[in-house]
């Protein structure tokens, strides 16, 4: 009687330890899974900025054309002036395209000295955005065409997005 009780106690102890191990494993797995989901969410947010940069690169309002054929990866500096003027007149119109972002161009190399090395196209990032957890910038090398000078410069399209 006494021996069988001890045996039963042993079995219960083994099962108890087994469940502790299973619970520990589950907690470990849940932690890892939670981290992976957070990473995935962050990745989706990063993708937003890249998507937007791609969209801007292919926007007819900004893209260079040669004989009415769009030139890939090229932005027309005169079209930038038109977009800036239009965005000032009708801020809501371009908000639908750009969203709450800051879009600009840095000129890296130009054969003919440009009037300015940094061109602001749209929006400003809110420095005092209390809900924003981070600011992300997507950089895309592009060619900037100046129809007046007839020259192509090497520039970087910068798209800044504030993420909540």
């Amino acid at each position, binding site marked *: 009687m006494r021996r069988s009780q001890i045996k039963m106690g042993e079995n219960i102890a083994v099962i108890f330890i087994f469940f502790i191990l299973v619970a520990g*494993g589950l907690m470990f797995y849940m932690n890892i899974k939670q981290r992976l989901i957070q990473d995935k969410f962050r990745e989706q947010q990063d993708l937003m900025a890249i998507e937007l940069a*791609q969209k801007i690169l292919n926007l007819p309002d900004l893209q260079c054309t040669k004989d009415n054929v769009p030139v890939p990866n090229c932005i027309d500096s005169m079209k930038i002036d038109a977009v800036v003027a239009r965005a000032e007149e009708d801020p809501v119109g371009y908000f639908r395209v750009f969203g709450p972002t800051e879009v600009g161009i840095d000129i890296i190399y130009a054969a003919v000295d440009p009037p300015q090395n940094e061109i602001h196209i749209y929006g400003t990032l809110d420095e005092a955005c209390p809900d924003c957890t981070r600011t992300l910038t997507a950089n895309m090398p592009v060619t900037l065409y100046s129809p007046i000078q007839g020259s192509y410069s090497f520039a970087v399209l910068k798209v800044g997005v504030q993420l909540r």
Partner: protein
Amino acid sequence: MKAQMEILGLAFVIMFIAVGMLFVIKFVLMPSESPRQDFTRTQLAYNTINALLHTDSECAGMSFRDLLIACADGSEVTCGDTLDPVCTYAANTIKDPILTSTLDAWEFEYEFDAYTIDSVSSDEISIFSNPLSNGECDEWKSARFPLQTQTAGTMFVELKMCG
């Protein structure tokens, strides 16, 4: 019988530890490369070369595409105040400011190469190269553009991004 049971118990414990280790290796030690990173690097390489080849240089009104072709053809054109040979001028200008202000500033590891293929041996003949500083990379994402030269056959401009 008792010894067999103990061995079985031991086998279960080892199995649990093995499964746990597999999880640790899968999730912690082997973080997988996301498709986004793949796409970003490939797209960045493509955009950089595409923009570079269209850019006009300060040398004789030629674009970088023309400069690289002239370099491959062995042109005697000289560029800049120091009258650098076309290859030196192209290599120096592509390195600084173009790549220094972009890929270097964004802390990417990359290799930029321009080469032709020998028609007899099919070997690559390097025109100029900007190799990776430590020379080692596990996985390259690259963009390669062919340019037709007058005398040197097809030239390739390649940007390989590490990551």
